[in-house]
């Protein structure tokens, strides 16, 4: 089926976000939408609700809407391949954002490396703990790539510090309430904990709630994503640090790349949006 919007109109872009249940991706979308508005592109955003197959469906639907380019924020790097191939068949360029795609060629990957982020988190936490003590890890939804990669990065990173022992790893499903409950329970079995790594800010904020006065004092909590609430917590000193992925920037650059690709330009394989460690010192730069 051929172009229905007519070449003259605004560039039609489709964007499938892995989930909007999480402020981080909400910001990603906002960044993208702002950029699209300034560039006068017509951006359609769908929510895959963390369901890889629903994401494939959405990309298919984009193809039948004859989008000029598709921005894909994979639910899962491996499972995204068929979606990309589907777009390929009808010659629509795909930009991967925040997560790469395994087993298929995309025009460009705009990402900030989760594994690297995990390592940074390990480093920062270790330093703030004085390179010794007991750490608890709050894991995301088991089986999701974010949980996997951040966990992997952290485990690698923490190895460098023999003084630090990971005494508990429990799932809190990226959810603030669960973060609160699980942390509360862990405090019973592991009262000696002096450090917490939460695989996203939501869980970190829950953990901080559970720690109460201890948060930021005896116990250091490091989160991931750099959501507004988290930045506030860092400012307040209750959160030791968060790994800011600058989701807005990710969204912005993804749209720029998409517009270029739609125009037929060939792009560099990857654009790495740096992950930054946000601490009390530099938090000011991030709160806009």
């Amino acid at each position, binding site marked *: 089926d051929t172009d229905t919007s007519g070449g003259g109109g605004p560039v039609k872009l489709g964007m499938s976000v892995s989930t909007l249940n999480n402020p981080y991706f909400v910001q990603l979308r906002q960044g993208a939408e702002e950029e699209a508005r300034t560039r006068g592109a017509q951006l359609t955003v769908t929510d895959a609700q963390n369901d890889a197959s629903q994401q494939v469906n959405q990309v298919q639907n984009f193809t039948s809407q004859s989008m000029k380019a598709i921005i894909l924020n994979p639910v899962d790097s491996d499972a995204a391949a068929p979606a990309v191939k589907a777009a390929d068949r009808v010659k629509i360029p795909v930009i991967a954002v925040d997560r790469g795609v395994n087993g298929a060629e995309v025009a460009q990957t705009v990402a900030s490396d989760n594994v690297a982020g995990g390592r940074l988190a390990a480093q920062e936490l270790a330093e703030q703990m004085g390179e010794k003590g007991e750490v608890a890890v709050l*894991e995301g939804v088991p089986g999701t790539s974010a949980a996997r990669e951040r966990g992997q990065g952290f485990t690698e990173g923490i190895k460098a510090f023999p003084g630090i022992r990971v005494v508990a790893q429990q799932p809190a499903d990226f959810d*603030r309430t669960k973060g609160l409950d699980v942390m509360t329970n862990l405090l019973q079995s592991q009262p000696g904990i002096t450090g917490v790594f939460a695989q996203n800010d939501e869980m970190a904020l829950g953990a901080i709630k559970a720690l109460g006065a201890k948060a930021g004092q005896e116990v250091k909590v490091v989160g991931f994503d750099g959501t507004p609430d988290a930045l506030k917590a860092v400012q307040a000193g209750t959160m030791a640090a968060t790994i800011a992925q600058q989701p807005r920037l990710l969204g912005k650059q993804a749209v720029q790349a998409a517009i270029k690709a739609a125009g037929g330009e060939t792009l560099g394989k990857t654009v790495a949006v740096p992950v930054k460690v946000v601490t009390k010192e530099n938090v000011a730069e991030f709160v806009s």
Partner: protein
Amino acid sequence: MSAETFTRRSPAVVWLAENGALAALVVLAVALSLLSSDFLTVTNLLNVGVQAAVTAILAFGVTFVIITGGIDLSVGSVAALSAIVLAWSATDAGLPWPLATLLGLAVGLAAGLVNATLIAYGKLPPFIATLAMLGIARGLALVISQGSPIAMPEAVAHLGDTIGSYLPVPVIVMVVVGLITSVILNRTYVGRAMYAIGGNEEAARLSGIRVDRQKLITYALSGLFAAVAGIVLASRLASAQPQAAAGYELDAIAAVVIGGASLSGGKGRAFGTFVGALILAVLRNGLNLLSVSAFWQQVVIGVVIALAVLLDTLRRRTTI
């Protein structure tokens, strides 16, 4: 005919219907206190109480619905929506918190009434009507909050606090709501009508019970309780999350059924539901204390739920 034996039995049945679940809870608690020295401490038990609160409050509301032979899948979403509306109207719309709270509760009530109208007058199967509401309420919560959490007004957030060091407000709320539920079910016309409708809707109708009106009340109560649960949940976090309580409906229903209610209606008790909710909370708490791996936790939860109810059914069969 040996009449007196009957009188001896019938309370026994009642006792079992509740206490199959209670027995399971006791077994579970004993096992955990043997496995982990941290389980049987005052603080930890209080934690369990707090963690059971939200599910329990939701489940109390669902108990009404299940007794009438219906089902309510929307409670989780409605809880989130109510909390969001409260936080939003207090923060962004700048309403005074008491008004905002009333608004939040009203939203829950309204959602329940919509469910009931679709079911009683639209003749939709409860499963469908409340499944629709599950999507609608969640969607509205996201729309209003634009997908980001909203801070709860200070005054309300105290619902999440602990008075002194041994009196968590969520537990108090849970107990109060539980008592209210028990009174409604056992002592009020509305409650007795629920049992009659669940037991035999036609007979109830022919006995002059206004079935449709009663259903309206039933689902309204469920919605209202969901709102309370949502507000307590948000208060614990001091922030209302658009995704809060996602999937809690299954926990709530499970609590009710573990508590001895039957999804075909006519049976169910506040106390049983309470025990059911505790079983789930104790289980999750225990798994954390024993730091069971993330992957295995779901398996264990599944197995224990099955065993808990199995214990109940087996006892009932062997005794009768």
